[in-house]
């Protein structure tokens, strides 16, 4: 029967079993490829992945003049671009989205162009951003910020229109609130869960823009390293980097979920 519940222990047993089957199938595939060609690196075994993991944490350069391990250099580059870009993009989206939702005279000149721009896949805009910002750190942060700006502004604007009723606003006026107080004490607080959800939803696309740009023009970062290592078929490092990206995604999701629960205990799904 559809949606019939199963015991909790069985659910988790099947969940762990699913992961085990996936890992087992991968190891079998890797063993088969190695039997055919013992020097292959396209489907690395777990042993090779562990070696790859060790390698990315090894100091680089000459032993007498060691440099930071590859992992930290790339992580530092990617995370700083992502955090700064997302910070700017989210802040701008919140300000413009809230104002568009609150004031018709701001909404009117912006909503058509924002609706149009939010429909353009931002990855397709990369070539334009490359021309506008040229290369350098400004390029990466700008494209992350602009990549999320239009669609997030659109979502926040709609959240203000739909989640904050006219009654709630009129009532706030009757309770003595000023316009700025309504913007902050009523609108901002009401849509805060939507803002956090939007940040979570936009993190994935933001990472995609950033990796695509890093693959094209960076000289450090996860995207750059994935491209460089895949060119020399060093898949043991590429796969480790992919796993790291998955972990970053999980940590961001967990962090934002926790933040939402802490800041918005009233919000029930």
């Amino acid at each position, binding site marked *: 029967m559809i949606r019939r519940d199963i015991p909790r222990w069985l659910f988790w047993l099947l969940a762990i079993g699913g992961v085990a089957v996936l890992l087992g199938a991968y190891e079998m595939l890797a063993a088969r490829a190695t039997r055919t060609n013992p020097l292959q690196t396209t489907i690395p075994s777990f042993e090779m992945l562990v070696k790859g993991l060790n390698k990315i944490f090894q100091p680089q350069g000459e032993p007498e003049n060691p440099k930071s391990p590859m992992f930290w250099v790339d992580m530092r580059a990617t995370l700083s671009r992502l955090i700064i870009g997302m910070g700017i993009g989210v802040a701008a989206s919140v300000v413009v989205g809230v104002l568009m939702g609150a004031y018709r005279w701001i909404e009117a000149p912006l909503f058509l162009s924002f609706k149009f721009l939010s429909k353009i896949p931002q990855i397709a805009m990369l070539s334009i951003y490359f021309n506008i910002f040229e290369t350098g750190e400004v390029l990466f942060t700008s494209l992350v910020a602009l990549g999320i700006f239009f669609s997030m502004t659109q979502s926040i604007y709609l959240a203000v229109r739909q989640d904050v*009723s*006219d*009654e*709630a606003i*009129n*009532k*706030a*006026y*009757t*309770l*003595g*609130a*000023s316009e*700025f*107080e309504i913007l*902050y*004490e*009523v609108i901002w*607080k*009401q849509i*805060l869960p939507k803002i956090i959800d939007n940040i979570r939803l936009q993190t994935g696309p933001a990472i995609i823009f950033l990796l695509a740009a890093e693959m094209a023009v960076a000289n450090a970062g996860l995207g750059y390293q994935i491209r460089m290592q895949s060119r020399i078929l060093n898949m043991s490092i590429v796969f480790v980097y992919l796993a790291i990206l998955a972990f970053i995604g999980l940590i961001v999701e967990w962090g934002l979920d926790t933040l939402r629960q802490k800041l*918005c*205990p*009233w*919000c*029930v799904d």
Partner: protein
Amino acid sequence: MSEYALEIKSLSHVFGSFRVLDNIDLQVLPGQIVAVVGPSGCGKSTLLKAILGTHPPTHGEILTDGMPVRGPNRNVGIVYQNYALYDFLTAEKNVSFGLKMDETSMWMRFLATRKYFAKRRDHLKKSLDFLNVVGLSEACGKYPHEMSGGMKQRVAVAQAFIMRPKIVLLDEPFGALDEAMREDLQMMLLRFYQENLIAKREGRRPEYTILMVTHELNEAIYVADRVIGLSRFHTQGEQGAAIVYDRPCPVFRPDDPRDFSKFVEQREELRRAVFDENYIKDRNQYVTFWKELGTLANSVAGI
């Protein structure tokens, strides 16, 4: 301070070529509970929105406590049928929301000064006291999604009255509630009315002045001390809805038995004067409140 809590002078409202309200004149004294009834689409909500200040009238003027209404403001409280509570605040904080807006500034809140926390403690205490008045002290820590419809409506009533506005508008306040909840909340309004009577006897200005839109005739007569009927069924009906009924109602105490048979006659008169489209009469035929006021005052004094 004006003699009237609310004064409407020659108010008319036109939507395009459709005249909704025609030449409405109304004065409400402090401490009155006025019920507004009328057929669907007669302009009750338009009148309410005009008094609230969100939809200014095409012609005429509205004054609350002598001050012209230019938009939603502190003088006019509102309780909506859908409660319109702030989802992100507990009952206690919903009720104290207005006090916070009114008595603290954004700077004070951001800087979280000692003065701000002292004020907040005071606000939350007042809020708890008011939740006691509406019989909801046990729910002070609950969020709106954790409360029943009746509880939410009590919070909404407390939220409006704690600000001591000149008049509170109730927009079909009990329409979404079950019968038991309705009765509880009607009792609450009767208790407010009793407090008004005590205040009048003691020479104080009554605190609870209410204009309530309802579609329930029994509720209108039972809870209010004055009923107003808005309707287009009068000799100049093509010019828009007007006040065709304005009479006092019998006053009930909260502990009186709910005996609706006591006002069957008035209910039928109201039904005929306001809702019967075949009964076209002079618009002033049943507008006799001020003439009867002397009698009403005597009956109130008798209580």
